[in-house]
């Protein structure tokens, strides 16, 4: 089953053509890393896949997706557990899996940037969406966080999910690579 498909997609931002003629298919159980230098359109491709940008040309089909990018989208005045549960199903399992259990009652505004990154990843993990879109998931994560993320992704792929990740660093695990040129 294909969870994400790009057909001959072109994207223009700010008058600059970032890429064109891009074909891409992501089936259940597959993980794809989008790589490329700064400004090559990695994050834009993720936002395109999330439906937050419009392609200039081409077709995009996607299943239900969850996105983790640089923006936090958690209410800072709330404890982490409550802030995460605004986004749907119970986040307790994901909080545990990312090593945030002790921080669950702590207000979001007190967390460090690495802990906030884990929190956004926990939202994706708790979402139940088959397609995960991760923009620079390793930013601000320590080695323990990266290991936990790798474990989560492995489990997600094994249960029929797919992951599209933009990163200029090598990601842990088995990834197909898509290289964007600048």
């Amino acid at each position, binding site marked *: 089953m294909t969870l994400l498909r790009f057909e001959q997609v072109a994207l223009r931002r700010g008058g600059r053509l970032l890429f064109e003629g891009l074909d891409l298919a992501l089936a259940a159980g597959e993980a794809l890393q989008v790589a490329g230098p700064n400004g090559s359109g990695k994050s834009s491709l993720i936002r395109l896949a999330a439906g937050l940008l419009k392609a200039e040309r081409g077709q995009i089909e996607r299943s239900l*997706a969850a996105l983790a990018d640089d923006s936090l989208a958690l209410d800072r005045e709330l404890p982490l557990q409550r802030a995460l549960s*605004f986004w749907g199903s119970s986040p307790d399992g994901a909080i545990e899996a990312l090593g945030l259990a002790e921080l669950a009652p702590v207000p979001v505004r007190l967390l460090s940037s690495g802990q906030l990154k884990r929190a956004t990843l926990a939202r994706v993990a708790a979402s139940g969406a088959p397609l995960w879109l991760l923009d620079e998931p390793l930013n601000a994560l320590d080695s323990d966080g990266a290991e936990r993320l790798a474990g989560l992704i492995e489990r997600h792929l094994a249960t029929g999910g797919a992951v599209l990740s933009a990163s200029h660093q090598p990601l842990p695990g088995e990834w197909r690579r898509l290289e964007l040129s600048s």
Partner: protein
Amino acid sequence: MRALVVREVRRGSSGLAWLPMAFFLLVVALMPFAVGPDARLLSRVGPGALWIAALTAALLPVERLIEPDRVDGVLDQLALHGLAEESIAAAKIFAHWLTFAPLLLIAAVPGAALLAMDGPALAKTELALAIGTPGLAALAVAIAAVTTGLPRAGSLAGLLLLPLAIPLLIFGAANALLLEAAVSLLLTAGAPFMAGAAIRATRT
């Protein structure tokens, strides 16, 4: 969507929710200083003064309605959850009205006393305000969405909101309730679409 309304009401009523109302009373309190202490004159301009105070108070929360959620990615995440931008705007309008209108109607009581308005005049104005506030809340959210991301959005919002609120002001202060209800309904029905389109347009 219900969770969104609950969240908006919680955020709207925590902290400085009373600030627009303090501002409202302050503007009302300026009237006797401006037109003099003549009770008859004050009670004649009273309803109009309450309306002008209500419009200026409606401007204060505009900057917190959309902008923080856009910057923080909340609008993006809501879209990923399959919520149309129009629904987001409608939820925000409803929640904003819930946190804004009741406090305004309460603050109008001491406001009317400051302007030497009698009971029947206060009752009429309260009814007109109650009918007008949904339109005012809808306008505030729509303007907040249109100006989000722009530099000096707060000042710009004032320039946009006050002229658009003139029909509400005219019919509200003149107590033409049916016409006022029509304007309020039009604004409430149209604002979610305006705000929704504006939110989508910010994603470039």
